[in-house]
């Protein structure tokens, strides 16, 4: 995969923030946890735990295994 350059322009550092420099609250609000899911609880229950633990109101999961 190569990069094509159509135009060049600088970015203004007064706005936005590189991902690795986000304040921790913003890092969490735009975060992904690759969880080693314990067997037993459902994806839904585990997601709920993680939300409470990290103090985030909303979260989504990609599911674990296909239903069967």
């Amino acid at each position, binding site marked *: *995969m190569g990069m094509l350059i*159509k135009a060049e322009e600088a970015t203004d550092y007064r706005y936005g923030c590189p991902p690795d420099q986000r304040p921790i609250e913003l890092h969490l*609000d735009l975060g*992904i946890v690759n969880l080693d899911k314990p067997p037993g609880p459902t994806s839904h229950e585990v997601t709920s735990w993680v939300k409470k633990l990290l103090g985030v109101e909303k979260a989504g999961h990609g599911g674990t295994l296909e239903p069967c």
Partner: protein
Amino acid sequence: MPIALGRARNVLQYIVHSDKTYVCVMALHEAVPEERVREVCREFVGPIYQRPPLKASVERRLRVRRIYSIEVHEVVGRLVLMTVKCEAGTYIRKLCHDIGEVLGVGAHMAELRRIQTGPFTENENLVTMHELHEAVVAWKEHGDDSLLRRAVLPVEYVVKDVPKIYVRDSAVDAICHGAPLAAPGVLHLTDDITKDRRVAIMTLKGELVAIAKALMSSHEILEANKGIVAKPVRVIMRPGTYPKSWKSSRLEEKG
């Protein structure tokens, strides 16, 4: 199991359609010589037919799915340990059943573990609930957020293998409001964009703005002086993170 937090919560549905890798134990209903097992598994590499099982939430029509590879690690008695890399929506249970049919003895899936979903693998960045809990304690009680920063990945990780379009600062806020991206707003792009493909719209600082559907291919975008190149389908960045472009020209007038 990837869990997306806060504003990132909606990105995962866009990788549900990515490739997956599973490790599975298939139990044959009678012993079969190892070489024959390996031979039949090789036959299943490539496109296969599957009809989703009764319990599935999708329409139960016959459809084609690709098996990219099957690696048989061990055959011990009637148990077969294998790694299967396949297209999204492939039912491993059905695959084991069908391999059993071709072998003539029948088989079922005894155990399954998914070890890769798109960019997420087992080896990298896998975090247990326990480790996550410790990271939160270190942050809340000792003011040390370093463990937490390692346990939680930035949303940009989800699109690491997705084609990308990097845009001017002045184009960002409009996209955050759902506006389509026009050719003049484009700075750089990866060369693997095709029409109708999902792409990631990024800022020059490497932030994910939105997931979009491309309306042109990479080379068309490169040549275009005008026209819409992509339409956002899911905005991730909060509106107002970047200023509206009319505002910056106002500042220039004052300055």
